[in-house]
């Protein structure tokens, strides 16, 4: 009798625990809101990312340790599989979003019916989400609006799909294929563009134009490419890492060296299948992935570089994993772009150096190939440097928004006031964090605020 009672009680307790576990897991797996919430519980918010000590004891997927570095004892295949396993775990929170994306693709009719499709001079077929906000004083001062209250078009992010389509019909076919995926992104506030490009110079020119002419649309830029286009993207990122928030490459055709300085851009590599013969390519991709995760902040240190072997939805033009990753990247930079760490020695390289770099990629002589790019942007940034109100935060801000003409026109004093107000609106915790990072900036801001409330 006692044995039966013990069995009954232990069975009840066990089933109770299992039920709770399954219930929580089901919510995390199926409910998008809850999965995002659990991510923020585990990692904190974007600005103050920190591991939750209590939840970390539960062994959740969020706390999977990223593969640190390339281990010689482990085969390339083993390391790629390890990276793939890690990316699956750490991005498990995006599964409800991926479900929603695939569901959306199968149900939507007339995907771009409610969105504007326009040509921005050399950029053909830009689809914008139609988001608008009233212009503020800063926008008028920056020349983005004629007067306060005017509606300004903006986007949470900008997704560019690179294609090699040369003919008009090929372009139209590919655009039609991508319409549904674009529609999903547009519904999330992301502008989309199918960009046909053949060379690195062409790509960099178009992207520079976009960022300079439409700063409110192209603030958070994510670029996707496949094959040769993937390699072009990596080269463009090598040249100007600060231009991009995220790059997603699928089966890059050739190895590209890593940027010397820490890249701000998040990097996702998708491989259709593992090819053991292409060791150099695999090593280069792995290097990009591992280097992209090198960050002092939690989110980029976990999600900044991922490698994934494509398993599902082969008929979908853009992998659901890539779409979820792009949205996560944009969401992160939308909030934490100002706080994102930036190496002080960031330098840009001439595109012409890539051919020689490719030849010597696996050697350690890449740093000798670095050449300063004397663009008008960088020279302007140097000229605008003022002796007063010069601090680390202002320098970083200028570096981040180097292509933004409105920032170029601002004095250091105005920038301190503008950035300080943004920080202040985020709360006291952010101000305290900035104070510990750059106390001079806070002192400048408080003094300017006193003089010009």
């Amino acid at each position, binding site marked *: 009798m006692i044995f*039966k009672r013990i069995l*009954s009680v232990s*069975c009840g307790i066990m089933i109770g625990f299992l039920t709770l576990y399954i219930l929580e897991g*089901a919510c995390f797996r199926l409910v998008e809101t809850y999965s995002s919430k659990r991510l923020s519980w585990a990692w904190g918010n974007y600005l103050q990312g920190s591991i939750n000590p209590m939840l970390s004891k539960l062994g959740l997927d969020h706390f999977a340790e990223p593969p640190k570095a390339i281990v010689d004892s482990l085969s390339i295949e083993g390391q790629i599989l390890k990276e793939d396993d890690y990316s699956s775990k750490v991005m*498990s929170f995006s599964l409800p979003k991926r479900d929603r994306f695939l569901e959306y693709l199968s149900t939507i009719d007339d995907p771009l019916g409610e969105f504007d499709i326009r040509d921005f001079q050399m950029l053909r077929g830009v689809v914008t989400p139609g988001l608008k906000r009233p212009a503020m004083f800063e926008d008028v001062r920056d020349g983005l609006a004629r007067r306060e209250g005017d509606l300004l078009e903006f986007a949470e992010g900008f997704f560019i799909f690179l294609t090699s389509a040369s003919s008009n019909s090929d372009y139209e076919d590919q655009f039609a294929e991508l319409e549904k995926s674009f529609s999903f992104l547009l519904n999330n506030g992301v502008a989309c563009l199918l960009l046909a490009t053949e060379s690195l110079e062409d790509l960099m020119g178009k992207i520079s134009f976009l960022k300079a002419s439409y700063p409110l649309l192209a603030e958070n830029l994510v670029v996707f490419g496949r094959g040769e286009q993937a390699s072009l993207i990596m080269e463009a990122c090598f040249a100007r890492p600060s231009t991009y928030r995220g790059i997603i490459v699928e089966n890059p055709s050739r190895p590209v060296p890593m940027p010397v300085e820490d890249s701000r851009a998040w990097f996702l590599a998708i491989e259709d299948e593992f090819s053991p013969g292409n060791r150099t390519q695999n090593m280069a991709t792995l290097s990009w992935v591992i280097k992209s995760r090198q960050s002092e902040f939690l989110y980029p240190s976990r999600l900044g570089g991922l490698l994934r072997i494509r*398993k599902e939805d082969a008929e979908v033009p853009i992998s659901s994993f890539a779409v979820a990753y792009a949205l996560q990247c944009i969401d992160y930079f939308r909030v934490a772009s100002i706080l994102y760490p930036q190496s002080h020695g960031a330098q840009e390289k001439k595109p012409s150096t890539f051919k020689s770099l490719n030849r010597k990629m696996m050697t350690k002589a890449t740093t000798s190939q670095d050449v300063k790019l004397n663009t008008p942007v960088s020279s302007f940034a140097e000229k605008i440097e003022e002796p007063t109100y010069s601090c680390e935060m202002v320098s970083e801000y200028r570096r981040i928004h180097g292509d933004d003409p409105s920032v170029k026109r601002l004095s250091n004093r105005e920038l301190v006031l503008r950035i300080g107000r943004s920080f202040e609106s985020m709360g006291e915790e952010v101000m305290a964090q900035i104070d510990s990072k750059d106390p001079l900036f806070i002192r400048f801001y408080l003094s300017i605020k006193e003089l010009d409330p």
Partner: protein
Amino acid sequence: MAFMGAVIEFNALSLENFTQVLVEFRFMGYSVSEILGLGKPDTVADHLLRLKVGLGAYIGLGSFCLIITSFLPSQRIQIKFLSFAISIPLIALLFSFWFRFIHDDNTVTREDKLSLFTVTLFTYPGAVCILWYGLHIKRKSLNEGRGKGYADDPLSPRIRSEIQPPITKIEQENSEKVVLSEGQPPSNTEENLAGNDKGVPPRPEDVDENLLTTVGEDDTTDQENLPVGANEAMDVDLSQESDPLEESSMGEEEEASPNLNSITQDEEATTPSSTPVEYNKENEITDDLNPIGEPEEVGAVVEETDEGAELVIKK
């Protein structure tokens, strides 16, 4: 019925179709072998092999459970064991599937979610209910316990009623019965049995030959008055002392039991010894019957003495 429904549903009327359906069946993107925890098959042949091994093992386990069930004593225990044996694999299967689904990297459609919800909605409560039934311990009240104990007692009224016919037969054969005071059955206590040698007749086979010889030879009338069966009834009642209900009934009997020594002359007058008085409480105890020996050979006589009535065993 379930098998028939499944066969019609999946159009598996022939074995070939059935195999094909089984191999091609997918639930939430998982094959049957994956659902059963047999791993992901690479080829169709591998899939079939896994299914054969896996289903064979499952059927073997099920058969083993049924064999064990058949050896269990009562139908109630059999059903409980079967509930337990079904619910545990069912819950394990459901939970393992959910565990796999949560930790896998597969995307699912709305239809998949709906089917998963439906399966869980019916499987989980069902499995928990039958597990609860399998492990349920029925709390017994005191009365229920007594009743059960009384029913399980090998000498319950039912059984007693079974042994009643030969007793009544003998009873009918005896034209006269032991005369006892009405409503006062003979004492069943050991005290009376052991201490009152005069009042309680011993078993016939235990009767001392010397004692029997002291009894008068001519006592045909007395033989008819012997409460022979009372000895058996007393022995039987003593064997039931562990039964609570029996104890209570026995207590009543003890209170009402007559001390043969206390039978007085007046009582004798009002209740003559020649008049047969049977103590029969709801056909439970018949004191004056002897189902073993012949009434002509073994018996007891109530003799009147100065101290009261005395029971004398005679042969």
